């Protein structure tokens, strides 16, 4: 009995070690016509399993391979911590530069770059961008029963010493950045209470009446609280995207209600919204092209589109080459970066 149990336990450990060894196995050698044939591409999700970033990585793992010549195997690896910063640092400095490592890029990385955060160990514009989907933008909304149901109403309430209370997760999270940007652009006074552990807690405090509203990504609002729209529990003030949302055609874009001289700042803000994938710097141009083409082809896949819809994200594609140009322009746009610094400090 003793020796049997011991043998079984040892077999278990052996199996575990083998599993570990396989998971750590480096990508194999090139073979066949495609440089990716027989290789394994690792998608590094900058969060723990569960939640938007992880779902996105797994969405890519499900659909990407069939559009890459050679159909490489795709695995997801979760590198959680520091809101995606650890994953980005690792991707930039440690991952192979042959297209077999792809990472999710958190929007907060741009804001950290603007703030010259010393924990950043990369230059944002030097990543080899793969592409961006779901440039989703945010709805800014407030409870209908508050006196803050339009920008004019907020200005009026401000004169009486009242400010709408927005809930937010972290400083560099869009739920804080968007209301703070609105304050700076529209000349209104708002209060952002940040430090919430997650979306659910903010939504509950809005329902409790402890908060007046928030900025929430479009897909997330429709996926989690479409009944608030149906019941007129909330009034959506604006949408932070270049075009109006077809589901709420009467809601103006932030651009429409902003002074003309502030529009370049809005463009800067829009450019960091969305769900972005990147590779380390220095990926050979031919490999980057194969992957970027595959990414664009996957985007047209019906199953992929269906999954994106189900997750409540809208589907817009920005190709990697264009993203590299956009990020480069943004990083060197001192007025935009100064704007980010101003609203975040």
């Amino acid at each position: 009995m003793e020796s049997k149990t011991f043998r079984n336990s040892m077999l278990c450990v052996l199996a575990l070690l083998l599993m570990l060894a396989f998971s750590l196995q480096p990508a194999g050698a090139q073979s066949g016509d495609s440089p990716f044939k027989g290789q394994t591409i690792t998608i590094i999700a900058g969060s723990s399993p569960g939640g938007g970033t992880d779902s996105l990585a797994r969405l890519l793992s499900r659909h990407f391979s069939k559009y890459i010549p050679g159909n490489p195997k795709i695995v997801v690896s979760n590198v959680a911590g520091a809101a995606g910063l650890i994953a980005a640092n690792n991707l930039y400095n440690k991952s192979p530069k042959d297209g077999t490592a792809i990472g999710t890029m958190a929007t907060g990385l741009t804001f950290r770059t603007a703030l010259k955060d010393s924990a950043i160990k990369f230059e944002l514009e030097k990543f080899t961008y793969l592409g961006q989907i779901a440039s989703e933008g945010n709805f800014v909304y407030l409870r209908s029963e508050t006196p803050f149901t339009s920008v004019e109403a907020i200005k009026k309430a401000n004169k009486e010493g009242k400010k709408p209370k927005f809930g937010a997760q972290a400083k560099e999270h869009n739920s804080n950045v968007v209301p703070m940007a609105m304050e700076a652009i529209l000349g209104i006074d708002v209060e952002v209470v940040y430090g919430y552990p997650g979306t659910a807690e903010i939504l509950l405090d809005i329902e409790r009446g402890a908060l007046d509203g928030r900025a929430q990504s479009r897909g997330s609002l429709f996926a989690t609280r479409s009944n608030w729209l149906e019941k007129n529990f909330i009034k959506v003030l604006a949408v932070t995207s270049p075009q109006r949302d077809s589901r709420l055609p009467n809601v103006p874009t932030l651009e429409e209600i902003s002074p003309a001289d502030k529009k370049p700042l809005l463009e800067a803000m829009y450019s960091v919204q969305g769900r972005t994938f990147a590779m380390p710097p220095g990926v050979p141009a031919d490999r980057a092209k194969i992957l970027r083409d595959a990414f664009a082809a996957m985007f047209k896949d019906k199953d992929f589109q269906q999954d994106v819809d189900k997750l409540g994200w809208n589907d817009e594609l920005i190709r990697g080459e264009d993203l590299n140009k956009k990020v480069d322009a943004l990083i060197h746009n001192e007025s935009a970066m100064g704007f980010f610094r101003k609203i975040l400090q």
Partner: protein
Amino acid sequence: MLDAIVTATGEIFTLSRMGWLLGGVLLGSVIGFVPGIGGRTTLAILLPFIVKMDPASALVLIVGIHAIGNTADTIPAILFGIPGSTSATATVMDGFPMAKKGEAERAMGASFLSSGIGGLIGAFTVLATIPMIRPLILTFGNPEFFMTAILAIVMIALLTGGAPVKGLIVGGLGLLIGMIGDAPQTGVQRWTFDQLYLSDGIPLIPIALGVFAIPELIDMTLGATGTRIAAAAPITSISTKWRGVKDVAANWWLLVRSSFIGSWIGILPGIGSSSAIWLAYGHAVQSGKDKENFGKGDVRGVIAPEAANNASDAGDWCLTLAFGIPGSATMSLIMAAMLLLGLTPGPKMLTDHLNLTLVIVWSLVLANLMATGLCFAFTKQLAGITKLPVHYLFPVLIVLIFLAAYQSTADWGDLVALLGFSVIGVCMKRFGWPRPPLIVGMVLQRLAETYFFLTIKLYGFSWLTRPIVIIIFGLTVWTIVHAVRRHSKAKAQA
């Protein structure tokens, strides 16, 4: 409603659905033994396959994988003093001393049965209170969450280990360790020494393993060659799982009360099972007439947290399904799976998709029964491990502990944390300092801090006049007075 119940019953009791459920339970139990993987990662890996299935079968499979975790994570906690997950940390307190006394089988019997019944009570409590849940959740805001966290810390600090002052000091140390990392309000890095690893705080698993598992392992290994975990008991000692079943029957009311505590905490978003188990454990100590055996292998210290753990899970499901509020990271993942299956969690799950909701409730009930049955069937074999010489177990356990620790963030820091906290754990054990308050202080620090700041920002000082805050404050004061009186009585007797 009756129609929906009939339809749901018809949907679940088919060969294929029962097969998926059993498959989920078996898969969950196999993977549950591999440290660091756990139910959440299993679900994440399986997500691409699950979303291709029909929604009812997919949900049944998810419930199966998820349900076994909460029942089976207690096995390493009892056998080796290694908490398989944070929700098994309270079971270590009395479960492992029971194993050392040769009562592993009894402890597991009691634990599995309490888990199963706790899960059932939780499921029915939640089902019965669905109409009241929304108002309850809305009444219980940030100030009440803050006070609940404080109550849990005070309870554990004062009620475990029989040394209230040492408990409070260790709890305070736990709070300080919990503060390492990004401050949730300001983003300022606290005590991170420019180490990115520390920016999210030290992960809990390496600390729990260092503080609980390594000291036990070292003690066992330093014993004479051939030492067994169940060293204190003769190898023929009879303590079957049926003794555990009798224990559960004898402590029936404790089980029910702990299940209610679990269900209640489960439906409060943001607190989670790690508080539920300790509140239930604290309640068991507080309400027990003879308390001197707690921490030394009292079966009530196993029954209460296990029942609360599974009951809180039912509440968590309810929050996710009916209100679209995932109470834990695993539930966030399940919510993502539901979205991919074309189901939007929220009030419509109680109207348009009521039959699917009932399929989930049925699956929870059945999966709990299956998990309990499965674990129960192998209790004897599992308990046999405690009778093996430790020098056979040591290499296996040490590998498992290091793997589990490293899986937290897959960073070398995890191993450094494991070793550092092992030293602290060994010293604490050697000098008689209670270890649970350290873990509880750490777990609850972030909750307490976050909710305290949100409370002050949103309510100023008016929160102090909220009725539920006053009630929980009263309970906290009562806990302190009770502990001080007990301690002085014990001193007077000594």
